[in-house]
């Protein structure tokens, strides 16, 4: 049994320690926000936060997560009460097929928690590892910009109070 801290709750998982976090999130815990894209750490669809950093969960064996807090897109809000970054993605209609979006949001969340006022260049550089095959990158960048302008400070502050 390995105990993980996911979105502020303890989750006991019976799986091999080398199992990727992504498989445990989706198959065992039914948190289906993070997606399987390439399984090679090359696309970013599986991005979640571990210990405050954006991490490709397909490359993160659960045996190595240890006590670090895991945050997934489900931890940011609900369909009826979306979090600030989720709302910004809705306002900018940043999703086309949507497959990359949970990963995009979590990578952006990691940036805004650390740096509530990023420059456009910082946003671009930070988001670079995540790919969108539909090509909505410009809307995604606008959504991150909008969230930073509107709620960046709130996102950063909330991460400090909710940290374990």
């Amino acid at each position: 049994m390995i105990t993980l801290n996911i979105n502020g709750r303890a989750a006991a998982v019976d799986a091999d320690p080398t199992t990727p976090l992504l498989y445990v999130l989706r198959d065992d815990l039914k948190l289906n926000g993070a997606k399987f894209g390439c399984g090679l750490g090359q696309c970013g669809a599986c991005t979640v936060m571990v210990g405050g950093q954006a991490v490709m969960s397909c490359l993160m064996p659960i045996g190595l997560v240890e006590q670090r807090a895991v945050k997934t897109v489900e931890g940011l809000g609900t369909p009826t009460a979306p979090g600030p970054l989720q709302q910004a993605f809705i306002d900018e209609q940043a999703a086309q097929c949507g497959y990359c979006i949970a990963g995009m949001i979590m990578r952006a969340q990691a940036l805004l928690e650390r740096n509530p006022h990023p420059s456009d260049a910082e946003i671009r550089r930070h988001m670079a590892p995540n790919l969108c095959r539909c090509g909505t990158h410009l809307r995604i960048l606008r959504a991150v910009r909008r969230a930073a302008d509107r709620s960046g400070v709130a996102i950063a502050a909330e991460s400090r109070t909710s940290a374990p």
Partner: protein
Amino acid sequence: MLALTWRPQLAPIDPPARSSFDAALIRRGEQLAGVGNCAACHTTRDGGPYAGGVALATPFGTVHGTNLTPDPDTGIGRWSEAAFRRAMRDGVARSGSRLYPVFPFDHYARASDDDLQALYAFLMTREPVRAEAPANRLMFPLGFRPLLAGWSLLYLDRAPPPHDTRMSAEWNRGAYLTASLGHCSSCHSPRTALGGEDRRRRFDGGEAEGWYVPALNAKSPSPLPWSVEQLTDYLSSGIARDHAIAGGPMQGVVAGLARAAPADVRAIAVYIGSVMGDPTPQRDERAKASVARAERGPLVANASTVTSGDRSPLGLGAAVYAGACASCHDLGRRLSSGGALQLPLAVAVHDPDPRSLIRIVLRGIEPLDGEPGRLMPAFGAQLTDEQVTALLTFLRQTAAGAPPWPDLAAAVRSAREDESR
């Protein structure tokens, strides 16, 4: 002293028209700029080609690459060919002021007139970009440039590269390019306290941007000997199946050499191969041992037997390897299409210094913008410092069969601080 070292301003010229340069000469200059990797210091990610502005951290302060485009005010548009030649050979700008030796004129001094003429033609026909280089920040008193004349007296060697009539024309071409525009030994040799290249230890290995730069002579850490073909592949594509994938500062070198004349790249490989020399019986033994380790099968025999409970560095390292590395580097290497290196053969695991392997684990190997290459994802966010240290302890013993690196944990911490800056 000042009278001896003073250099005059050379007369400005009107920027020459593009049509005044021969197309074939420009093309040759482009290939030579690839050999010299001018872009590494003179092209930023967001600026125009050769417009300068790259911040170069040296032990003496930060110096910025200058604008090499023919802009008349901020670039070299008013430089005559004679002024360009003087800068390349003496490290003196057209204005007469001394250039900082992070600009490797100690090597460029040996470039032939023909090659400098071609480079001049190439640079003077680039798109002019108006871009002032940011101010340098140097420790006192190095902001006073005439002092640099002393450095030149110590380190500037104008002797032409050795020409050995017993060797082939290709070897001699390689020796010339390596010693002049290629300036390979700038990074692949240790430096003295004054920042000059230590010529007595040429190709003994050095450092660049926090990476260990491997020795290229008989001290090469590579467990397998390099063939000329493998060196040529590596230099022009960054990939050598049984040795290494180029990472860190070497990626820019490869991007440059991909634009060089293929015959010149091969000539460099022929020369470097001869500097490495024929393997000694002792090195043959090491090669055999490494191949045996690679053929023995996965480094962790059965990943599912590895538990996360063992906190010894070797136990934790094996767990990290099994969970994070083995799916590409081992276990049939199925996920990476068989392209990931077999670590018992990988040069970085055999380096005398862990810095390059630490950087590869933390930041992965990401091809430069617009350049082809293999991608290894970064593991800096996945792994804690303790896990990285344990992984490298494990690899050093199991993959390299070598004694532990001293002060590994401190090296991991310092690389992490540098990466997060």
